């Protein structure tokens, strides 16, 4: 194990290096670029033995990864924002073909207006594409989830691609001290990829057959089942990771000061750190507040949420997303757990950070105040103008 001062992207690249992918297909896009730059340097200086393929678009990047994965290779690609949306067609091909590709997505706002800063509207708009989606909080978790991502995706029970989401700039481009595991431990954690779902020169096949209405639904059911089964594999993967590397993340969600909490803020990604500090501050004042970080949005942690929210008065969902014409998508998902489990609590949605708008400590304090006093259900935080026209 060594320590290094790395950005989120650089930490992720170290995780990919330790996972030893045989094929990496790359196309740069801000703020993802430095992860593929770092990987190409690693291939150049032979610290990573991999076929690095420079392609002409994101659509090609994922298509290339699909082709390589169909030959049984461990593959990696990365993207962001418009790039992810350009891949949209291939996202479904990868999940339907059951190819355990790991992809890093640098969460970034979507055009128009054009903007390169962070929000989560890119990946949340792709929630139904059949990929496992995890949102990480810091550079260490980025590195660790590159490794865990392959472990989850390649589990024979899962065989589903994994998208690891890092908040653009605030995580991809900020620096922290990161522990880099040694290769022996990484190999112990992640054995080489083996699958029967592959072609070879001895066994040539056609890729991507058609299935008509009489059998198609069964294939879709199997994808759904694999995603549900992945919940167990995600927990087991985190336990195994903790045994080898001495740190874990708690699986699908991670709670903070949930004991006796009446008011809970639900978060996603890098904003969680600041929210945790505000929880500490308010707890010192005797306020019964807590925090629940959703790590995996697919599969959705419905059991974890139902268990954590059983005796709570109000919750707020903080997300960098809006599904225009309704509310934040994470909020919709959380509310469905509450309805299905007959929980009696108030729920609020805090839409913040769109297009890279800062979310301040005072904003978060105000969210907790809102949970206690009640008010509007869907709230835009930090709008620079009045909306009471």
């Amino acid at each position, binding site marked *: 194990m060594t320590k290094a001062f790395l950005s989120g992207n650089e930490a992720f690249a170290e995780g990919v290096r330790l996972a030893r992918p045989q094929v990496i297909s790359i196309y740069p896009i801000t703020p993802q670029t430095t992860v593929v730059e770092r990987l190409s340097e690693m291939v150049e200086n032979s610290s990573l033995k991999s076929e690095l393929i420079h392609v002409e678009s994101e659509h090609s990047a994922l298509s290339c990864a699909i082709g390589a994965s169909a030959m049984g290779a461990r593959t990696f690609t990365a993207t962001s924002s418009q790039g992810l949306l350009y891949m949209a067609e291939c996202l479904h091909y990868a999940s339907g*073909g059951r190819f355990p590709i790991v992809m890093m997505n640098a969460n970034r706002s979507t055009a128009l207006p054009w903007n390169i800063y962070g929000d989560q509207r890119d990946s949340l708009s792709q929630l139904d594409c059949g990929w496992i989606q995890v949102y990480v909080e810091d550079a260490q978790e980025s590195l660790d989830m590159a490794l865990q991502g392959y472990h989850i995706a390649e589990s024979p029970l899962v065989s589903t691609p994994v998208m690891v989401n890092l908040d653009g700039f605030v995580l991809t481009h900020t620096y922290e001290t990161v522990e880099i595991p040694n290769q022996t431990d990484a190999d112990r954690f992640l054995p080489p990829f083996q699958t*029967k779902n*592959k072609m070879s020169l001895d066994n040539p096949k056609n890729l991507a057959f058609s*299935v008509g209405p*009489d059998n198609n639904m069964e294939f879709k*059911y*199997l994808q759904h089942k694999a995603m549900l089964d992945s919940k167990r594999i995600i927990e087991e993967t985190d336990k195994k990771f903790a045994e080898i590397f001495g740190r874990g993340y708690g699986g699908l969600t991670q709670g903070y000061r949930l004991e006796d909490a009446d008011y809970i803020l639900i978060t996603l990604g890098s904003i969680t750190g600041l929210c945790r500090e505000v929880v500490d501050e308010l707890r010192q004042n005797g306020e019964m507040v807590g925090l629940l970080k959703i790590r995996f949005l697919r599969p959705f942690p419905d059991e974890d949420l139902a268990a954590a929210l059983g005796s709570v008065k109000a919750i707020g969902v903080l997300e960098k997303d809006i599904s225009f014409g309704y509310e934040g998508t994470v909020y919709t998902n959380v509310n469905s757990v509450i309805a299905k489990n007959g929980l009696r609590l108030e729920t609020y949605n805090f839409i913040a950070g769109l297009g890279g708008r800062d979310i301040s400590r005072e904003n978060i304090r105000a969210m907790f105040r809102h949970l206690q006093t009640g008010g509007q259900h869907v709230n835009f935080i930090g709008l620079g103008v009045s909306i009471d026209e």
Partner: protein
Amino acid sequence: MSKPYLRPYQKPQKLSDYPLGTASEAGYLVTKNCGWRNERPIIMDECINCLQCYLYCPDGVIFKTKSGLDIDYDFCKGCGICEKICPKQAIKMEVE
């Protein structure tokens, strides 16, 4: 050229009978594709074997036999392009 043929196929009984991925031997046909046809083309004696229909059929279902041409009705969609292209009006479309 040998063309793919329809193979016998047993519908899976259990989920575990389904394959994991969606890759298989090339040209492995297990299902017909002609359910939407409402007129079928018939090649008649006026045929001079010019092969225009064979070339234009968008589904490649007109094939050569020792004596002339035949149509694979399992995959003919009944579009009538062969009828239109035939210089001798040797193909007629018959209501199914």
